[in-house]
Each structure stands twice: as structure tokens, then as C-alpha cells.
């Protein structure tokens, strides 16, 4: 038996809101029947498994694929499917339509046996995935996209394994942790990560979620549900809302040592942007990144403020670098209708334009490869 205080606190937060939500629903009169929420992800195969970590390969939707595949790495604190939440709001769909061969890392659920895994172990998981993709697609290099914490990992990976990366795409990636614009950055300075990890092992998602909700409690605990109430008769709105809620609270625990290192080395000592981060004896030097860089930043992101993501532009040695600033928050950048109209077509074109230079033998002239000859699936 152990007391999970945060689970209790989360419950004490949640239950009154569920109750008041129910009361509000009652006053709204008869409500249309809401079908069970479904995440409409595009079809994929699990092509590689390494412990809890899986590599997903999305089924191509066009006949010919670009020669350089894309690996997407999402944060470990939520699930990858935010990039493919529903049919009309899928970043993956944009990529597939452009002929990009898409692979995604699914971090899975860490168990107690994973508590000792460090950031370096996650980088090694990424490298196993990259090796698998290189071997099966015969591509020399891959395009690498990292979102949020996955962006930090992708920057570290590219610095350590630059010879395997063709281009780097960062989406709302925290790089400079000293900024005062983000509440998480302020709190991060005071957190005693040692006590949390020594006490819990893996850091529970309930504790992490409570922290995220407290960043903007009025909007996330009140206004969001008031808006839901206002739109409770709109079937599509309700479906979208429930999908988002499902994603928000479908969060795995975080391996303890990853959390310890992330808080102490990054939030408190800011070692990454100082080029002083050392993982497993290897120094992470962002100057070693010379590949084309696309930095996607949400201008109203409160989790990872733009001030935290923008500095990478000056820390890398890439000559081909571009920043796409988009008026959106941390999640809106992936799911808002505006982002799918204005941002993702541009981003996918940027990747497609750089997908011909995977190795010296592939240029725009040597055209695309047959979709059927892309990575082998398990089934």
C-alpha cells in the first residue's frame, strides 16, 4: 500500500467538476445521444518493438513515396496520436498525401522496471528505430521530427548521430529553459526532482497532469467545460471535445531518471542550450547540427513559450534553416483547423522538398520509389 496523494488530489479536483458538468447537462434539457469516442487514426503497422517502445509505420496513401522517410518522435508525457487525432485534423495525413513515408515512435507505458532509464536510453531507443528504418527502406538518412519533449530528444539525437539525419523538424521544442515566460520554467527551478523520483520511481501521470492543469486553471478547469456546455448539442463539437479529453488524460507515467535529468540538467541548469549537456559520457553540442532545420513555434504556447524554442536557430550550424511562427498554443498547433489549412501544407512541402537528398544517388531526377517497396511490415 502506498498513498498516492496526487491521485487523491486529482480526484478531488475532477469529481466536483464532473458533478457540476452533470448538473449543467441536466439543465440543458434533452441532449443528443453521444456515441462512444473513437480516435480516428490512419492505418499503420507495428513494425518494430523494443520492450515497451514500438515503431509504427503508416500505410502510404499514394502510389509513390519520396526516398527519405520521416520519423516522428512525440513527448513521453502524452501519446503520439495527437498528430493523427481525427481524419480532418491529421498532420500524418498531410505527410502521407505528399508521399512522405511516415514512421512514429510510440513510447508505450513504462513499468517499474523502467524507472532507471535515462534520457540517453530514450535516445538509444530512437537510434534503434532509425537503424530499423534505414535497414528496411535502404535510405541512408532519415528526416526527424520532434514535438515538445520529443523535440528536445530529436535535437540531442541529431547532435549525437548527425550522420543519420537528413533534416530536423522541431515543433514546440523546449531548448532554452531559463526563460521566465513559461510558468513551468518558473516552477521547474524549485522542484525537488530527487525527492519525487526517490519516492515514486516513475513519476505518475496524475502528478504531471495536475501540474499542467495548474498552469492555466481557469481556462482548463472551468472555461473549457463552459464552452463544452454551450456546444453540447453540436455532435461534431462534442466528438472533438471528447477526443481531446481522451488524449489529454491518456498519459503514461514518466521514467524516473528521465524526469530527474530533465528537471535538474535542463530546467534547473539549462545545460542543453549552453552545450554542456552530457548523456552517458557524450557531450551534446548543438553546433554539430548542420542539417536543414525547420522550427515550428506556436506564438501563444504557454507550455513551451516561443522564447524557449526560438534560440535553437542561433545554436545550430545549419545554413538551411527556417522558422514557422504560427498564432496558436502548444496543442492547437497540431489540431486547430487553421493550422491544417495554413501551417501543415507548408511544413509538409518543406519536408518533401528536402526528401530527395537522402543520399548522393537520389535527387529529384531519380524520382520516387514505389510505395510497396517501403518498409516491410510485420503482417
Amino acid at each position: 500500500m502506498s498513498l498516492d496523494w496526487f491521485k487523491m488530489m486529482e480526484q478531488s479536483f475532477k469529481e466536483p467538476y464532473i458533478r457540476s458538468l452533470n448538473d449543467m447537462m441536466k439543465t440543458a434539457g434533452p441532449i443528443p445521444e453521444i456515441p462512444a469516442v473513437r480516435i480516428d487514426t490512419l492505418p499503420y503497422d507495428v513494425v518494430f518493438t523494443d520492450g515497451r517502445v514500438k515503431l509504427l509505420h503508416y500505410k502510404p496513401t499514394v502510389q509513390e513515396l519520396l526516398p527519405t522517410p520521416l520519423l516522428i518522435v512525440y513527448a513521453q508525457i502524452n501519446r503520439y496520436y495527437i498528430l493523427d487525432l481525427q481524419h480532418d485534423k491529421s498532420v500524418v495525413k498531410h505527410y502521407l498525401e505528399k508521399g512522405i513515408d511516415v514512421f512514429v515512435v510510440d513510447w508505450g507505458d513504462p513499468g517499474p522496471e523502467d524507472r532507471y532509464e535515462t534520457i540517453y536510453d530514450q535516445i538509444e531507443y530512437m537510434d534503434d528505430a532509425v537503424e530499423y528504418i534505414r535497414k528496411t527502406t535502404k535510405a541512408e538518412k532519415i528526416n526527424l521530427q520532434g514535438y515538445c519533449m520529443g523535440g528536445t530528444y530529436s535535437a540531442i539525437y541529431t547532435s549525437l548521430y548527425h550522420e543519420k539525419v537528413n533534416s530536423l523538424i522541431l515543433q514546440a521544442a523546449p531548448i532554452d529553459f531559463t526563460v521566465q515566460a513559461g510558468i513551468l520554467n518558473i516552477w521547474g527551478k524549485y522542484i525537488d526532482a530527487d525527492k519525487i523520483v526517490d519516492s515514486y520511481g516513475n513519476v505518475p501521470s496524475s502528478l504531471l497532469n495536475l501540474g499542467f492543469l495548474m498552469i492555466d486553471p481557469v481556462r482548463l478547469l472551468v472555461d473549457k467545460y463552459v464552452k463544452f456546455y454551450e456546444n453540447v448539442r453540436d455532435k461534431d463539437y462534442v466528438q472533438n471535445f471528447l477526443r481531446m479529453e481522451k488524449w489529454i488524460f491518456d498519459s503514461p507515467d514518466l521514467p524516473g531518471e528521465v524526469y530527474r535529468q530533465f528537471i535538474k540538467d535542463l530546467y534547473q541548469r539549462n545545460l542543453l542550450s549552453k552545450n554542456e549537456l552530457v548523456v552517458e559520457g557524450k557531450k551534446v553540442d548543438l553546433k554539430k547540427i548542420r542539417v536543414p532545420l525547420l522550427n515550428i513555434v506556436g506564438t501563444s504556447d504557454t507550455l513551451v513559450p516561443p522564447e524557449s524554442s526560438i534560440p535553437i536557430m542561433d545554436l545550430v550550424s545549419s545554413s538551411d534553416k527556417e522558422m514557422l511562427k504560427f498564432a496558436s498554443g502548444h496543442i492547437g498547433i497540431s489540431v486547430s483547423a487553421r493550422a491544417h489549412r495554413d501551417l501543415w501544407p507548408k511544413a509538409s512541402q518543406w519536408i518533401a522538398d528536402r526528401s530527395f537528398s537522402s543520399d548522393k544517388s537520389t535527387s529529384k531526377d531519380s524520382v520516387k520509389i514505389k510505395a510497396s517497396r517501403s518498409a516491410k511490415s510485420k503482417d
Partner: protein
Amino acid sequence: MSEDPYQKFYKAWIDATKGYMAPWLAGTQTGDQNQSKSAPHFRVDWAMQSKDFFERMLWFPPFSVIQGTAGPAIQNYVKYAEISSLSIEIYKKWIDLYLEFSRAMTEVTTKLNTRFLTSAPGADPKQVYAIWLEELTQGLDKLLRSEEIAGKMAGFLSNIMDLKKETDGFMENYYKSINIPTRSEMDRAYKEIYDLKKTLRKMKKNSESP
């Protein structure tokens, strides 16, 4: 201008709480180090006395004979005293945070009253809600961005972790006394598995590299 009823209520509530909590909060509010050291006697004394009492029990002949098996169980009474002391510390920090939030809410209420008095939003509840939302968001944002609050929240969290450590230790002692594997034993096993997995991964990588 006379004080509005909300302010009056909150003030009275804060004063009452402060009065009630005075022995527990003494010295911590003012930052007076000497007072901090000397004042909260009764909570610490109570916990320490219980600790001493249970520790002395270990030397009481009937217990000392069976110390090998009864020891861990009796140690739990000692832990219980520590847990009680920590719980009081957490409660104190919680009240302190609660007061900070109450102060911020009083400020928000004052601002709301002023806004409602100067620019009557009319009978449209949506407009009233929008004003409430704006003021509350701003008020809480200011509070949550404060370094002082961040420090207090981290201190609160840290105390909760201390308490968890003690309660977990309580259970460890109990499991040990009835010969059941404990969490720290499991953790040691997990560490070995982790080290083995890591070695294996390294070997595999070395064998695959050209």
C-alpha cells in the same frame, strides 16, 4: 468607501484561521528565525515524545527478548510519530498556500466589484462571465508566476514526498517483519535487470557495427 462584504468576510476568515493556527504558524509568517526555532513547540514536542516513548519500548525486557521479530513492527510506531509530525508540517504549508490563494481571490473579487460598479455589464450573464473569467485568469496567473508561490508549492510537494517516504518505510518494515519482498528489494532487482539490458544492448550494437 466602506469595505465590501466579500472583503470583510475573507478578512474575518483569514484572521480567524490565523488565530486558530497561530501556534503552528508562529515564526514562519514573519520570517523571525528565533521565533521559528522556539515557537512551534507543542507539535514537535508531541511528536518527539511519542518517538522517544516507542524507541524506549525496544529496551523494555519483554520486547528486547523478541527484538529480532518485534523490532521492525515496533519501529513502525516510531515511524508513526514521524509521520504525524510530517502531516502537521504539510497541513501548515497547505494552510499557508490556501491563505495566499485566498488573498489573490480577495484581490480578484475587489477588482470585479469595481468593474461591475463602474461599467455595469448589464443583465447579460455571458458578459458577466467573460469579465469574471478575465479577472480570475489574470489574478491567478499573477499568483502562479510569483517566485515566492513557486517556492511554497515546491516546499509543499517536497513535504508530501517526505511523508510518502515515511509511509512507504512504514509498510517496508511491516513487510519485512512478515517476510514479504519489499519495494526497495524489488527496486534493486529492477536495477540489475536494467543494467543487464543495457549491457546486452551495448554488446548487440558493438556486434552489429562494421
